[in-house]
């Protein structure tokens, strides 16, 4: 394939963006791991990431994370095929269930992260 093929059409570009989302998300998870490691420093040595640069980085990562989630969960309707009483469940319903599960799981995790901070 010619160099720069992915810049020639919008859907090629967004395909590459989807693949690229892995990089910022990996870096963010490594930062999360650093925060786990920092807890070894004890109460005086522990300092969570709080800088403006970190918040800006997180906002950028959130954009990539949402793009990964939306594209990945949308594929569920293509990949997953279920039947109830011998009738196939519409792919639209399968996708909706994935997004519903995402919302519910996110709400539970947010509750745990905030509730146990008190």
């Amino acid at each position, binding site marked *: *394939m010619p*160099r720069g093929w*992915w810049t020639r059409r919008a859907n090629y570009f967004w395909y*590459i963006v989807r*693949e*690229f*989302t*892995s*990089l910022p*998300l*990996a870096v*963010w*998870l*490594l930062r*999360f*791991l650093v*925060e*786990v*490691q920092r*807890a*070894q420093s*004890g*109460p005086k040595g*522990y300092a*969570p*990431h*709080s*800088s403006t640069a*970190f*918040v800006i*980085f*997180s*906002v950028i*990562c*959130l954009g990539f*994370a*949402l793009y*990964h*989630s939306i594209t*990945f*969960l949308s594929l569920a309707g293509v990949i997953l095929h279920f039947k109830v009483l011998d009738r196939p469940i519409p792919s639209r319903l399968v996708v909706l269930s994935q997004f519903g*599960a*995402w919302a519910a*799981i*996110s709400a539970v*995790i*947010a509750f*745990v*992260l*905030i509730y*146990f*901070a*008190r």
Partner: protein
Amino acid sequence: MNEHSTKKRPAFDHLFFWFMFAQGGVIAALLIPVHILVQGILGPLGIVPVVDRHYDTWISILGNPLVKLYILVLIAFPFFHFAHRLRYLLVDLGVPAAKSLPAQAVFYGGAVVISLITIWLLLTTAPLSL
């Protein structure tokens, strides 16, 4: 070719990496955005109290075995997904060396190393408590 040499065997390594790739994609899609939103944005900005903002709440929740298992799943599965995607990103961008065996060892081996580091950190950071 004799019958023995043509006998097909299940490709367990292929099965393993595809399982990890698919599950890693699902886990990354379902779990990562809310962590970034709450722990990366809302917490540092002081909009909501978050468990990792203070040592005592963070070390307390890290001691829970279910939380340790959750963090292992949160880190390990997505890293196998990321390794696969980033390797194929390089292939798509015209780096054929990314298909090679050494490249596979680097990417998937990296995911294994990150998983092992995560296990070690979770076992050594906070004593188990319920």
